[in-house]
């Protein structure tokens, strides 16, 4: 019966593995090699040691981009999770209670369907839409809504607010996904727990902090990881929405966009690969930290 097992295994693995090795593993390995070269993106290259990393260390734009990534990494998940939790709670247990049974608000299904929809849109298309929502003259949606007497807000062209605008777009797109995710988590919390607490006279606020939140902890961690990944990758938003390539005055510069600019606009593919290597270790750190947290939880569960 074991006859033909190995030819079958090899036959099934060879194509997917080859594709993966060439385009994914190969690319990551080459990134390390190229980070030590002066490759422009075309033609040959010379090995220049760690020059790219020295240059990186002294490059103020790199540090600005890294700082912006960290801002987004901290603020965007917190805001998204807070709002999503709030809405999910209202949808599931924010409704009337009758005889101690807590229920979701009327129409919660419709809300969930609407909230989730932006998740289905490409970030690139969302970026184009919000480029116009934040338009800096009367043709922009927000400036169009403001009273005629106001002078138009600059939004993306204002270096104080440009990054916040991009963060808002991320939150706008993501909230619905987490409302659905948290709703699923809340749905699996037994009704009898809420009933018992309600009989004991617990208010909605107490229910939220004492029951819902602790029981959702696992789901929150998953959300944090997913949002962390999204926070690192704002390429589409910055490439499409930002004024003057990550501007104004680098106010919306992020690492993904730095990699793109250096590789394809500045003809410094070697330097772009060096930024990639730094990012590799940052991601690894993030992954290791998350792993530690989840491992501990797995034992507890």
């Amino acid at each position, binding site marked *: 019966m074991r006859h033909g097992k190995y030819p*079958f*295994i090899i036959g*099934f*693995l060879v*194509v*997917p593995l080859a*594709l*993966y090795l*060439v*385009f994914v593993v190969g690319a990551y390995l*080459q*990134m390390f090699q190229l980070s030590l070269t002066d*490759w422009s993106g075309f033609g040959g290259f010379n090995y220049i040691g760690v020059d790219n990393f020295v240059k990186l260390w002294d490059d103020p734009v790199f540090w600005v981009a890294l700082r912006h990534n960290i801002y987004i990494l901290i603020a965007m998940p917190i805001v998204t999770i807070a709002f999503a939790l709030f*809405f999910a709670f*209202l949808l599931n247990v*924010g*409704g009337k209670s*009758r005889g101690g049974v807590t*229920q*979701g*608000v*009327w129409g*919660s299904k419709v809300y969930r369907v*609407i*909230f989730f*929809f*932006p998740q289905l*849109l*490409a*970030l*690139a*298309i969302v*970026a184009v*839409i919000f480029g*116009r*929502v934040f338009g800096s003259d009367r*043709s922009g*949606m927000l*400036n*169009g*809504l403001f009273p005629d007497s106001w002078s138009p807000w600059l939004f993306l062209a204002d270096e104080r607010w440009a990054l916040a605008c991009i963060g808002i777009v991320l939150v*706008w797109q993501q909230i*619905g996904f987490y409302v659905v995710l948290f709703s*699923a988590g809340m749905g699996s919390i037994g009704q009898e727990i809420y009933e018992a607490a309600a009989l004991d006279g617990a208010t909605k606020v107490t229910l939220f902090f004492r029951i819902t939140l602790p029981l959702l902890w*696992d789901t929150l961690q998953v*959300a944090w*990881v*997913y949002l962390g990944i999204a926070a690192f990758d704002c*390429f*589409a938003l910055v490439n499409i929405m930002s004024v003057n390539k990550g501007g104004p005055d680098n106010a919306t510069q992020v690492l*993904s966009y730095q*990699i793109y600019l250096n590789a394809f606009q500045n003809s410094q*593919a070697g330097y772009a690969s060096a930024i*990639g290597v730094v*990012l*590799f270790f940052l*991601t*690894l750190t*993030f992954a290791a930290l*998350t792993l530690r947290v989840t491992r501990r939880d797995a034992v507890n569960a």
Partner: protein
Amino acid sequence: MTNLVTDPPAVATKPAPVATRERRVNPLNGMAHIALLLWALATAGPLIWVLLASFKSNSEIFLGKPFALPEHFSFKTYTDAWSEAHIGQYFLNSVFVVAISTAGTMLLGSMAAYVLARYKFPGNRAIYYLFVSGLAFPTFMALAPIFGIVKSMGLLNTFTGLILVYIAYSLSFTVFFLVAFFRTLPAEIDEAALVDGAGHLRRFFQIMMPMAKSGLISITIFNIVGQWNQYLLPVVIMQGAGSDANWVLTQGIANISVSAGYHAEWSTLFAALTLSILPMIVVYGIFQRQIQAGLTAGAVK
């Protein structure tokens, strides 16, 4: 970071609790409705605005009053977007690329996942972890090497190049998800077929695939949405002179937005946006539950 999700996927949406009528008006319930309604407006508002603006002339758009109805419904913007701005072409390119690459991803991904989940052989764990480790790193990290690899194969500006790269970068999650899924399926039926003399191939196509239908549907939806919305990879692979005939929808819309910005001529852009959003709304309206389940599949414990 994927180790968060080791359990088999579950359906994300639970039917919302149906609220029962009650005479007493609960102030919290009222506030809940207001909060939810506000976010529903914030979600739908920009999309409704895009739809309204798509019928307006450029001078109407600059009047402000973003939610005023258009003076008369003109479809000229739509014919312009379809023919002059080539939205139709981009749309068909996207359909073509995603159809082939999702099919390829599913075939190759389920083949690899099947042998990794169901067969013991030396190197099994190593190959599995090789695939899964790809989940930890963002795609844009190795932008320059991806470009270099595709270029060296002569596949720059070709659908073949884009499709192969899509498949390669979709394999990590597909293999990870399906391995977990295949492991949960009962072994008895498989063994019975083995006793009856069914070969490896037959067992895969006639026994495993039908049994794994729900998991395969979820991950297919996940891949379709992910590949349809991809922006970074097409921007890298379809670039340079003459590449615009091969652009996908996200790229095309982003480009229309740039050229619309040069001329401050927005009406065609809004029509193009509407044309790219409407199909998503229709598909979402029909497959709403499956889509929510598919997209949250990776995150639900």
